[in-house]
């Protein structure tokens, strides 16, 4: 049952050395071993140290001792140590089985290679060694550790010393009461082995003074599964004190290192302990034995012994609880304020809060979000304002177009009056004639009938003129619809013809054979045409006697219609061809400068384009394109 640490294993515990160096060391170590085997004696023989375990090597908490001692040893004296480990399994067997043969075996094993030091971990190993040392290892120093100081009985041998922990159960329990002052009940987790029953007694004695403050529940007689059920259903104001659990009441060894995590997972109450093996795995914390600390002291003493000091001369006082340590996560879980902890306490496993860890990120993101929100609000506000402004501007525009129409009509008022006076005059004449005829006898009925028919006709004609004007001047809401280009031009001609006649201008329009329609307000289209017509007529004021204005319409592509108003006027100076569409640009003395600007705005409003050009043989051409309502097939 002796295991020798293979060289590889040894060197892998030297984290400071590089890979290449490691390889060399491995080779050296193998050579050294071979050398030892051949010669039987060596000048620089390494110190042989036996680590004697009481229980299985991986058995917590002693596994923590061996682990730490091993690590410390190799770190302190890397080359000088030839470490052997053996495990005294008899301690776990019921009924004190004979350990004689194991002792003989060890004696035989190290007969020719005397051990320089034996370190026993836990009471059974030290007792075993004390019993057999006189016979088998009379000169080998013994360093006892891994047991509570009150379990140790010194043999009085000069080659024996100890580094032992001292457990203050009362302090441990008081810690629970300090941290959780309302605690009324503490469940003590302990196994069923004789040693653990001993500890039950010891804890009982230690806690005796606190009996009136807290009740204890003992788990010694429970299987681990039963314990788990118990801790899951503890009454409020309970706590769990994890003592030791080597073997439960069902005789099942609980040595796989999963005991505390399982307890922790099941428990509805916080878990405390007296040593830090499981610190970080679910213990709340408090003053505890620090096994790394004890191990360090063990190795210190071991080094001194190996250096030649007499073991008995090295006296190490029992190692008590280290300064209190707490697991921050458990504190959080059980709602324990850090303020309640004693000032010397260290809080570990502190998990940075989200705020603490990402403070700047949070601030940055929040700022960005805030900025964005402000920006979005500003933009929304701006949008509302823009919408309002747009609505207002649209309103103004429609008012202006309305005004433009009124002005247009008023500019033509004398022509319109004349136009209207024709039928009115005719009606009056006819009525007069009728009166005269009626006064005669017999009255000429046929002629009277004719007269009445003519009156009706002239009245209709006057009504039509007024209707046109009213349609053109109407102020009510726009009505979007399909407008026939032919009809719009015909309507405009009707309005504008008297004026043209008055000015001696001949107006011409050839109807396009196909029906071209655009989507617009009829009045708006009329207004564009009328403005262009008036503009053209004004341009012809000083022109040759042969004054002609021509309207043209044609489909320019599948989806567009082009309308042109051609005049025989003076034309437009080249540099003003685009400028004339700007507002308040006028060449006329009495113009508002809005006619063409309004025409452009209307055309663009319906997705079209307007431009002016000079004709080859004099005069100007104003053209605009508009999308067809339905693209002609």
């Amino acid at each position, binding site marked *: 049952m002796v295991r020798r640490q293979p060289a590889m294993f040894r060197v892998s515990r030297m984290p400071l050395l590089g890979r290449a160096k490691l390889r060399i060391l491995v080779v050296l170590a193998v050579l050294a071993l071979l050398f030892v085997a051949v010669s039987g004696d060596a000048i620089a023989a390494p110190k042989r140290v036996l680590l004697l375990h009481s229980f299985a090597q991986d058995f917590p908490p002693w596994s923590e001792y061996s682990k730490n001692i091993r690590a410390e040893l190799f770190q302190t004296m890397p080359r000088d140590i030839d470490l052997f480990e053996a495990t005294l399994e008899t301690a776990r067997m019921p009924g004190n089985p004979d350990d004689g043969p194991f002792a003989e075996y060890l004696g035989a094993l190290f007969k020719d290679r005397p051990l320089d030091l034996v370190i026993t971990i836990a009471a059974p190993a030290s007792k075993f060694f004390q019993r057999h040392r006189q016979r088998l290892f009379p000169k080998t120093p013994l360093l006892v550790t891994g047991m509570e100081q009150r379990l140790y009985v010194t043999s009085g041998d000069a080659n024996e010393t100890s580094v032992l922990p001292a457990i203050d159960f009362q302090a441990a329990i008081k810690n629970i009461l300090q941290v959780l002052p309302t605690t009324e009940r503490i469940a003590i987790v302990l196994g069923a082995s004789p040693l653990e029953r001993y500890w039950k007694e010891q804890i009982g004695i230690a806690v005796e003074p606190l009996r009136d403050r807290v009740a204890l529940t003992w788990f010694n007689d429970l299987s681990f599964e039963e314990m788990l059920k118990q801790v899951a259903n503890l009454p409020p104001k309970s706590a769990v004190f994890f003592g030791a659990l080597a073997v439960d009441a069902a005789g099942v060894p609980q040595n796989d290192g999963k005991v505390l995590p399982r307890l922790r997972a099941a428990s509805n109450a916080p878990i405390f302990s007296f040593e830090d093996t499981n610190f970080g795995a679910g213990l709340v914390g408090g003053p505890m034995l620090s096994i790394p600390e004890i191990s360090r002291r063990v190795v210190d003493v071991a080094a001194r012994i190996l250096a030649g000091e007499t073991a008995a001369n090295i006296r190490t006082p029992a190692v008590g609880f280290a300064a209190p340590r707490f697991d921050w996560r458990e504190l959080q879980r059980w709602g324990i304020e850090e303020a309640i902890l004693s000032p010397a306490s260290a809080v570990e496993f502190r998990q940075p809060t989200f705020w603490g860890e990402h403070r700047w990120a949070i601030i940055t993101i929040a700022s960005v979000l805030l900025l964005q929100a402000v920006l979005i609000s500003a933009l929304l506000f701006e949008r509302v304002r823009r919408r309002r402004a747009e609505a207002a501007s649209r309103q103004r525009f429609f008012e202006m177009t309305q005004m433009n129409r009124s002005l247009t009509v008023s500019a033509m*008022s*004398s*022509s319109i*009056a*004349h136009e209207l*006076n*024709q*039928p*009115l*005059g*005719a*009606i*009056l*004449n*006819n009525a*007069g*004639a009728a*009166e*005269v*005829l009626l006064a005669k006898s017999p009255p000429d009925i046929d*002629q009277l009938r004719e*007269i009445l028919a*003519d009156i009706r*006709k*002239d009245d209709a*004609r006057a009504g039509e003129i007024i209707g046109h004007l009213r349609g053109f001047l109407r102020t009510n809401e726009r009505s979007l619809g399909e407008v026939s280009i032919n009809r719009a031009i015909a309507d405009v001609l009707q309005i504008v013809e*008297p004026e043209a*006649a*008055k000015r*001696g201008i*001949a107006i011409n329009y050839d109807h396009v054979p196909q029906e071209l329609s655009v989507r617009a307000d009829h009045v708006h289209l009329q207004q564009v045409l009328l403005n262009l017509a008036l503009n053209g007529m004004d341009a012809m004021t000083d022109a040759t006697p042969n004054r002609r204005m021509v309207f043209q319409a044609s489909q320019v592509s599948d989806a567009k219609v082009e309308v042109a108003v051609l005049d025989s006027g003076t034309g437009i100076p080249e540099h003003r061809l685009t400028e004339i569409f700007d507002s308040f640009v006028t060449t006329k003395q009495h113009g508002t400068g809005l006619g063409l600007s309004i025409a452009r705005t209307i055309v663009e409003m319906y997705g079209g384009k307007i431009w002016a050009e000079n004709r080859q043989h004099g005069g100007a051409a104003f053209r605009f394109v508009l999308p067809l309502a339905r693209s002609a097939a």
Partner: protein
Amino acid sequence: MTAAPTIHIVDDDASFRTSMSRLLRASGYQTTLYESGDAFLKQPPDDNAGCILLDLQMSGVQGLELQEHLARIGNILPIIFLTAHGDIRGSVQAIKAGAEDFLPKPVSREALFECVDRALARNVEQRQQQDRLSAMRSLAARLTPREAEVFSLVVRGKLNKQIAHELGTSVRTIKAHRQAVMEKLDVKSIAEAVSIAERLGMLAE
């Protein structure tokens, strides 16, 4: 000379033209209708009795142009313009060119008749004046060239001696010519002769 006067209506609006004619005819006038100034010029009336009702605003040959044209060819038919309200510029121009009268459209029956009658009366007057003038012209046409020369010098106030000197003949001969002129023109005094000469436009030269 005593033919019934005709009212010539020139208006491009058929409806108005017809109604106007209807009213005037019903009230006993004679009318002829023209749809434009051109049409009027193409077929001018062969009788001087009557008046013209002319629309101021027409396409093609306009009212004012027609007025101008008629004045050039010695028309004596009075022109009454028909005009819409407010056409001041056109009206002023027409008056300057000798328009007889103005009528707004629409016009009341009474105003129309009054205006037409006045125009016709003036037409009669003008025609009588014209008749007198042509009578004088026919009298003057009877003078021999020599008598005409003497007549033109007499009405300019020249003495017989001066005339004889100017024409290179004797005062006696001039006296005889002078007598013949007075007889042929059927005048008894020099003042009458001067009046005829003035009407015939001889003094303007």
